């Protein structure tokens, strides 16, 4: 399955009120090309920071589903965040890694995920739902399972292929992206806003 196919299938499952965060590079550009929406946030720089931002949002907005969609390079760069997220176990967070085993945006240099399965790391970290997904049928099934539960979810999706030739960049400025996302977020009912959060099992 190509990354574009995987993204299309995932994007089709993102609900109207859900927040979706996309990592630096081709994943943001392809998501922007396929299905841009105000509640999408594109991390243009700061590779590796996305899951931290996702954790912060998930803790503050427990009634909204937060999708963190990153690549293998991005996940590897901030690997310590996996057990941190798992220790809080936010049930509204869906953490997806699109694993093409390379740093595509910089020319396809290999990462280390051809021999290391991040699903095992997520499981060991304590994610209660962790799936390794190798093809489109498995992705559809996993998405259906994921949407049927309220629990911290991790999906490692093996993908191939490159972004289409000439795919554009995100055309909004960083400030426009931030303001648009904040407006989409603040449109939510105030009652969903959590003022105090504690780690799972520690509160």
């Amino acid at each position: 399955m190509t990354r574009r196919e995987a993204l299309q299938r995932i994007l089709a499952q993102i609900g109207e009120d859900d927040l979706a965060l996309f990592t630096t590079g081709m994943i943001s550009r392809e998501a922007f090309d396929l299905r841009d929406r105000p509640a999408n946030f594109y991390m243009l720089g700061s590779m590796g920071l996305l899951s931290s931002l996702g954790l912060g949002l998930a803790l503050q907005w427990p009634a909204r589903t937060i999708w963190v969609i990153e690549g293998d390079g991005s996940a590897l760069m901030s690997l310590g965040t996996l057990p941190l997220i798992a220790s809080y176990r936010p049930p509204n967070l869906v953490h997806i890694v699109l694993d093409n085993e390379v740093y595509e945006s910089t020319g396809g240099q290999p990462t280390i995920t051809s021999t290391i399965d991040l699903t095992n790391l997520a499981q060991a970290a304590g994610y209660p739902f962790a799936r390794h997904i190798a093809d489109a049928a498995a992705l559809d099934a996993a998405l259906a399972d994921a949407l049927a539960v309220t629990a911290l979810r991790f999906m490692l999706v093996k993908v191939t292929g490159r972004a289409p030739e000439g795919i554009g960049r995100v055309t909004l400025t960083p400030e426009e992206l931030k303001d648009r996302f904040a407006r989409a977020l603040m449109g939510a009912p105030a009652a969903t806003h959590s003022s105090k959060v504690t780690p799972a099992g520690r509160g």
Partner: protein
Amino acid sequence: MGGIASLMRTAEEFWAILKRQQVTFAAGVPCSLLESILNAAQVDVDLTYIPAVREDVALGIASAAHLSGRRGAILLQNSGLGNVVNPLTSFNLMYRIPVLMVVSWRGYGGQDAPEHLIMGEKTPELLQTLEIPYVVLEAETLDETLAWAVTTMEQRQIPVAVILRKGVVA
């Protein structure tokens, strides 16, 4: 009583000032100079404090506050400034996402363990280079200085740093 000790402020006072400034969501990495502040945050029901695994992770977490219409803070040792240079330049400054940075100052005045001396000397320069507004906290002026920091970060929509030396907040 008397002398320097009587001028020191408590961690509870420190957080009371920040709460009046509506800073209630924080993340950080510990430093011995921040011990009382971090311990007070853990038991304060009006505060959320996330113990992050790295300073950049803390910054990512705390930045969610601004996107949610709130005010966030990170707490870190100045040695951890190195870990936030990338997210400051490529995320917070670029998107204009304000966060209050409470930075402890190890190596101040060249009197500390060797691992703190170089960053101790470079801390103000590093913040100047990044064009992060900063101020060194003093016990006597803690209230107005923290208020200035929060006002400045909201007005300019960028992170602002307050630097904490030993002996200012007990």
